[in-house]
């Protein structure tokens, strides 16, 4: 792998930038692999990278129906935080947050992680109580989170409207200073390049059409549009399409796939210093380094694989943005789009072995999977390589729905849903 550095940049500039290598190969599908990952999004590529790097499993294929990073990895609003209520969630998301800190150095790719602070607004007495409960729970788990008065919130984020004359006045906010954003595409590209350099084959434009099982029920091969691949281990990291892929192995999943929309404005000069989220009035916003305001909405009401949602959902979100930040009222929106998010009943992910030997699943990230990308890949690679979960993802089993050990972040309302 060609190492990226300031010196390298200078050297290549002298040659008119002609000497750069391709970031990853376009290999042909081999007839057999030690492990196959279905889905080349951030989580799938991270899984392959850590399989190769930490567990020495390098004969790995990552199979992608479209192009890498073209699903929810390229469609989310890039928010990173770990202020979840329950111990299990805090451990999982904070594991990821710690990896974000040094990820760019580790994979030699600038993922533009920016710990600019994530501020979650409280508009009602219930919000205040819930936010403070989260702050105390987070602190017990060693996760930073602090309470701000409306005035302190405005000091941290000057565009914020803390007037008492709006429909849902701001009563305070919870601030996680280590939270922030990263460049979503760079995360997928960086992991792809690093995994490729370790020998992982990334096969794009190749749809999985079946999962073959032997007489004992264990996984023996994956059927794709580019041929059959023999493998003993399959990791499904297919986000919104997980139910479809798992059905190929005869498994039903506790998942429903919903459209989730986001939109960006025209680019403007730096005007917005942090990330602001409001679960109560369903809006979240940050400003990208390109200058666009990146705005996320809530999910649409119904399940769908259409990758688009209804306009009234984004309209509702923009109403909230305009009220919270009156200075953006005359901004024009450039693009909006939808992704398909796989939502579990308890709004916590599933990183688990399954009833089928050799079949592993990483799904159910719902509306907030991007932030967990490095941690998710790290513990899922452990699960696949050792055939047993990492202590951090041990609670996130598929069996928890049968056994009643839900990790009920849905009730905790830590996420906008």
């Amino acid at each position, binding site marked *: 792998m060609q190492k990226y550095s300031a010196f390298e940049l200078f050297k290549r500039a002298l040659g008119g930038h002609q000497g750069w290598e391709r970031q990853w190969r376009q290999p042909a599908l081999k007839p057999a692999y030690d492990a196959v990952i279905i889905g080349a999004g951030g989580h799938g590529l991270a899984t392959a990278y850590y399989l190769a790097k930490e567990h020495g499993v390098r004969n790995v294929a990552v199979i992608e129906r479209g192009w890498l990073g073209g699903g929810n990895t390229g469609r989310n609003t890039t928010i990173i935080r770990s202020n979840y209520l329950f111990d299990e969630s805090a451990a999982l998301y904070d594991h990821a947050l710690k990896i974000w800190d040094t990820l760019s150095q580790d994979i030699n790719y600038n993922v533009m992680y920016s710990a600019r602070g994530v501020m979650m607004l409280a508009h009602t007495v219930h919000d205040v109580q819930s936010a403070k409960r989260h702050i105390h729970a987070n602190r017990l788990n060693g996760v930073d989170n602090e309470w701000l008065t409306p005035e302190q919130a405005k000091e941290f984020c000057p565009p914020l409207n803390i007037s008492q004359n709006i429909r849902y006045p701001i009563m305070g906010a919870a601030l996680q200073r280590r939270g922030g954003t990263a460049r979503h595409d760079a995360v997928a590209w960086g992991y792809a390049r690093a995994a490729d350099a370790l020998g992982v084959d990334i096969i794009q434009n190749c749809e999985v059409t079946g999962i073959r099982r032997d007489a004992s029920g264990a996984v023996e091969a994956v059927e794709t549009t580019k041929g059959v691949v023999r493998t003993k281990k399959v990791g499904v990291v297919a986000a919104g399409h997980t*139910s*479809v892929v798992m059905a190929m192995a005869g498994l039903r999943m*506790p998942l429903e796939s919903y459209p989730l929309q986001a939109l960006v404005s025209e680019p403007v000069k730096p005007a917005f210093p942090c990330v602001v989220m409001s679960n109560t009035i369903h809006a979240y916003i940050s400003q990208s380094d390109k200058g666009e305001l990146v705005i996320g909405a809530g999910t649409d009401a119904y399940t769908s694989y259409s990758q688009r949602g209804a306009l*009234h959902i984004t309209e509702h979100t923009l109403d909230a943005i305009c009220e919270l930040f009156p200075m953006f009222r005359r901004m024009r929106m450039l693009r909006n789009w939808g992704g398909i998010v796989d939502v579990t*009943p308890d709004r916590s992910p599933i990183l688990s072995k399954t009833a089928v030997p050799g079949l592993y699943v990483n799904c159910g990230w719902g509306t907030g999977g991007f932030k967990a990308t490095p941690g998710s890949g790290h513990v899922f690679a452990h699960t696949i390589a050792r055939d047993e979960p990492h202590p951090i993802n041990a609670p996130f089993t598929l069996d928890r729905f*049968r056994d009643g050990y839900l990790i009920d972040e849905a009730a905790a309302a830590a996420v906008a849903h």
Partner: protein
Amino acid sequence: MLIINCPICGPRPEIEFRYGGEAHVARPAGTETLDDQTVADRLYMRTNPKGLHFERWRHAHGCGKYFNAVRDTVSDFFVTTYKAGEPKPDVAALLKDQAR
């Protein structure tokens, strides 16, 4: 925004409705003897198909009644809607009719 045909009130915009999840998920009989997996299947496991989906809707800002619908989850096209309690319609025949 979707236009949804309430079997009682007729076609109305989506914002009048509440989505009610997968339809025809029957509560298994003999609750006291059921094993955990059967209960979990009913409570949590969903078909989540990419294609035709049998689902419940409630006309919350209209007649208030629950009804069932068949929708293609790829195109969001409603094949048909029918009253709660009625059996699953013959979707293949309906699609053939609509194609004609």
